[in-house]
């Protein structure tokens, strides 16, 4: 039992659910409580993170990097200490941009043990 809570959201209006679902199930199986809110705008992600008092945010990025960057920036303003990681269609230039903001990026082809390991590390479970 970890008791650690992870909020997962999609920043775009793209509804592919394959990736996020696989990740959510793997996190659940690793003992995390996962709260999926689906497609959400930056301010909606922020409010849900606050209300749900989560320990980590996972963003699925389905579109332009600037939309994701807005969500991350908004989160940083409200809860600067909250770690964020993300996956989805993130080309190398976008990956670099997010990493510069302190966001860990797991592009397509990332393996589940790596993602789960990151979740454990980012929530202080070692």
């Amino acid at each position, binding site marked *: *039992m*970890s*008791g650690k809570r992870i909020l997962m959201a999609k920043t775009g209006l793209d509804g592919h659910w394959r990736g996020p679902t696989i990740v*959510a*199930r793997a*996190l*659940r*199986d*690793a*003992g*995390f*409580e*996962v*709260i*999926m*809110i*689906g*497609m*959400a*705008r930056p*301010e*909606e992600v922020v*409010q*849900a993170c*606050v*209300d*749900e*008092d989560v320990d980590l945010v996972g963003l699925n990025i389905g579109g332009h990097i600037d939309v994701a960057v807005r969500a991350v920036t908004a989160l940083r303003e*409200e*809860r600067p200490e909250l770690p964020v990681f993300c996956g989805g269609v993130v080309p190398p230039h976008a990956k670099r941009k997010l990493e510069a903001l302190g966001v860990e990026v797991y592009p397509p082809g990332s393996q589940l043990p790596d993602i789960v390991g990151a979740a454990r590390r980012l929530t202080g479970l070692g």
Partner: protein
Amino acid sequence: MAGPDAMAELVAEAVGGSRSALARLISVAERGGEGSAALEAALLPCRGESYSIGITGAPGAGKSTLASALTTELQTAGERVALLAVDPSSPLTRGAILGDRVRLQPHLGNPEVFIRSMASRGHLGGLAMATCTARRVLEACGWPLVLIETVGVGQAELDVAGATDTVLVVLNPGWGDEMQANKAGLMEIADIFVINKADRQGLEATRRDLEAAIAANAPTRRPAIVETVATEGTGLNALREAIADHRQQTTASGEHQRRRQARAVTELRDLARARLELALEAQLAGAAGKALADAVTRRETDVDSAARRLLATLFTRSDPEQAP
């Protein structure tokens, strides 16, 4: 969790309107244990009254959609709404995908709505207790309406929903096996039956069946029946009115007060029992417990006398702070 001062400070922040403090307090309630006990103490001076509505029913009955639609309905009527989506199915050793937040999409980002997915992780008093503490936090923070939605109709779920002021039991035309099997329990806790997905076949038969079952109840305990199609927002107005009627009737008749009193007894019993068990386990694991067990094994004392002696060691303290 930090000491009582830190807790009081966090409560003060939450009461002052900080959502983030409110959210952290609910986490404390969720974790249970001594933190939760400290929280209850810190909440004691807080005033504030909220009305709670429990929503329970079999998985697939459309509870989340109904909770979402009811939130919209109450919001339109000008109320701020807090919704606790409670998930008792989260086992202790594994994680969970909590709640059904996709249904709650329409309320994302709305400052007049507070949504929280809760899992049971605490030990003291169980999930019903954690939910009650969370409700008191919301009450202290001035949320006038608290919806508490649970995911099934097992005993844990019924306990959670049963600890609210108005209990909605959601079912569908045709009932479903799980509901039938729990009919007696549902009859006991329901204040309003909601037949959701009422546009489906079998509505009339289900209504007749319900009416027959309700007729067997005492005249003072005859739940209303409301039909809804939550996906289309149909029947929500009637549901809001049924809730208001129930609230008005139980308040006028004194039933509301009696229920709160009964709930206090239940909470008291649950918590005392939980503490007693903890203390007992501690005592059994300690030197005195081991000595008694040895004595029983060696047949130096009979088991009942040993049990009495064990209990006596628990109840010799006069300072409640030192009590189990």
